[in-house]
């Protein structure tokens, strides 16, 4: 039975270095509103960490998003993410506002933060959910793939808040236009006696050319070990360009140095859901398919008629990539 003391949904809104709200927040927000409806319209609130003066620009970002309250911690010590500081302050906030559900985006930062928060609150945390729902008892039913996507497990939590993380691009963002009067609530930063023993000595931003458009791509053309070498990937780029797609790769291809880690799709890489995903020379290990099986349509090209990728493709073409693609490009 739901605990009467705990009510509402709290979402951690991660800010980028440039003071933007990470897109995963909007994906969580959309889902949180659906959950709120099933919970008789409980509040959907957000918490952010900012540093002096930055809050003003953010007010605009939360406008008409349907967030009831934005709690914010404003302090110069919070400029850079710190596991110890951030987790301590979220725990403080949960103690004050007692949300029944706490959602965190499964970015690298979120996956660092969430287990520290759940541990300190002695509650459960379900990682990398692909679906969130409210069950007949009013509890959060969090569904996640396990065993590399082989099985789906729906997980319930006995304690409060019920915590879950969700990877970017797993939920779709609906059209958000929900007028509520969003209240900004400053919180007291109490870090007395909290020692941060991790000192940041350098940061190198991933250079622009390495940042890709996979998140927004309508068509993704991905290559695996079947592409053999750099020439295979050059051909992939030509193929992608010819149909207005972006290129991506499987983990073995990235590990073989054929493509950048930033375009790796799958369990330890990105999750994508384009309109069309074309898998070339990818065997279709579960570790890869968990990152792309939500694509609307999948075409697979592979020499091996028994390749696993054919099981999840809408159209499987058994054939040689090095024969088919050059001919395709000739027009």
């Amino acid at each position, binding site marked *: 039975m739901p605990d009467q003391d705990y009510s509402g949904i709290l979402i951690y809104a991660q800010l980028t270095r440039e003071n933007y709200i990470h897109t995963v927040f909007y994906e969580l927000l959309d889902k949180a509103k659906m959950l709120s409806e099933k919970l008789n319209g409980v509040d959907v609130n957000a918490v952010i960490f900012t540093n002096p003066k930055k809050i003003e620009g953010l007010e605009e970002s939360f406008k008409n998003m349907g967030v009831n309250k934005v709690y914010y911690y404003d302090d110069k010590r919070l400029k850079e993410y710190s596991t110890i500081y951030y987790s301590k302050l979220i725990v403080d906030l949960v103690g004050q506002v007692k949300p029944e559900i706490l959602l965190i985006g499964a970015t690298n930062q979120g996956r660092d933060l969430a287990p520290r928060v759940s541990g300190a609150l002695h509650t459960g945390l379900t990682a990398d959910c692909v679906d969130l729902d409210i069950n007949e008892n009013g509890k959060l039913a969090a569904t996640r793939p396990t065993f590399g996507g082989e099985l789906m497990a729906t997980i319930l939590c006995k304690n409060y808040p019920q915590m879950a993380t969700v990877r970017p691009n797993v939920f779709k963002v609906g059209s958000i236009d929900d007028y509520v009067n969003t209240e900004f609530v400053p919180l007291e930063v109490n870090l007395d006696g909290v020692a941060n023993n991790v000192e940041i000595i350098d940061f190198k931003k991933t250079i622009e050319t390495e940042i890709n458009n996979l998140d927004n791509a309508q068509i993704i053309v991905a290559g695996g070990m079947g592409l053999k070498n750099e020439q295979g990937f050059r051909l992939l780029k030509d193929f992608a360009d010819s149909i207005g797609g972006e290129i991506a790769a499987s983990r073995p291809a990235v590990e073989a140095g054929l493509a950048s880690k930033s375009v790796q799709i799958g369990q330890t890489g990105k999750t994508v859901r384009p309109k069309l995903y074309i898998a070339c020379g990818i065997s279709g290990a579960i570790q890869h398919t968990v990152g792309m099986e939500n694509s609307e349509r999948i075409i697979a090209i592979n020499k091996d008629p028994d390749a696993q990728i054919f099981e999840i493709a809408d159209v499987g*073409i058994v054939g040689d990539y090095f024969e088919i693609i050059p001919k395709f490009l000739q027009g």
Partner: protein
Amino acid sequence: MKIALCVKQVPDTTNIRWTENNTMQREGVESVINPYDIYAAELALSIAEKLKDAEITAFTMGPNQAQDMLRKLISIGVDNGVLISDRKFAGADTYATGKTIAAAIKKVLPDFDLIICGQFAVDGDTAQTGPSIAGNLGVPQVTYVKSFEKADNKSIVLKRELDDGIETVKVKYPALICVLQDTFEPRRPMINGIKLASKVDIPVLTLEDLGLSDAQVGLKGSPTYVSRAYRNQSKHNSQKYELSVGESVDLLRDKVKEYGCGECVMGASVAQEEGKDA
């Protein structure tokens, strides 16, 4: 310097069985070391090569068969192994697992400097157990570690992968780190390594040894539980075609047109983009 290396045996994912409580059936299933824990072991061993007095103790929680994995680690240079094993630990989620492993480290290696874990386990893939151990022991954590730059007896400098770049951090001991994959050649057993490993005594810690209660471990001590588990079914059509090259090209062209977004097929969007610039 004392290093605790946390490793997990993961089942071969082709043969999964579940218990009545919908938790994974682990006994009798073919097991391998979690690949990320091999990276963690490699990092521990390379730190030990730099700091001559370093001693590595590998901890694992699991059934008796997990001893084999500990012995393999000893054969490549890890000094000691500790098995945390009790039927009462079964069905633990990451919260209870973190608590149990933390209690074992406190018991066997109370003066540890560094705890090294793999970033994920490939079966559960939660990435939560490392931070949970750190939280239970009240030590800082550094996750998504790619490599270590330098280490001495007081602190270590690490490179870690963030959402938008690579951060270099220095952390003072005691601390816990979680390691992502890196590129290296897997180590082979040392000369006499296998023989040595077969002779090493591997202590087994049970619930009683850890000073925790029944209610704190296993399924009972876990705030989360699996209410339903089911096979993941593909929503795609899975139609397979074995055609000539020419026919394959035609099929590909048709399907790209059909599935792609109207305006961005066949080079149209590239042309548009170029048009915009002009």
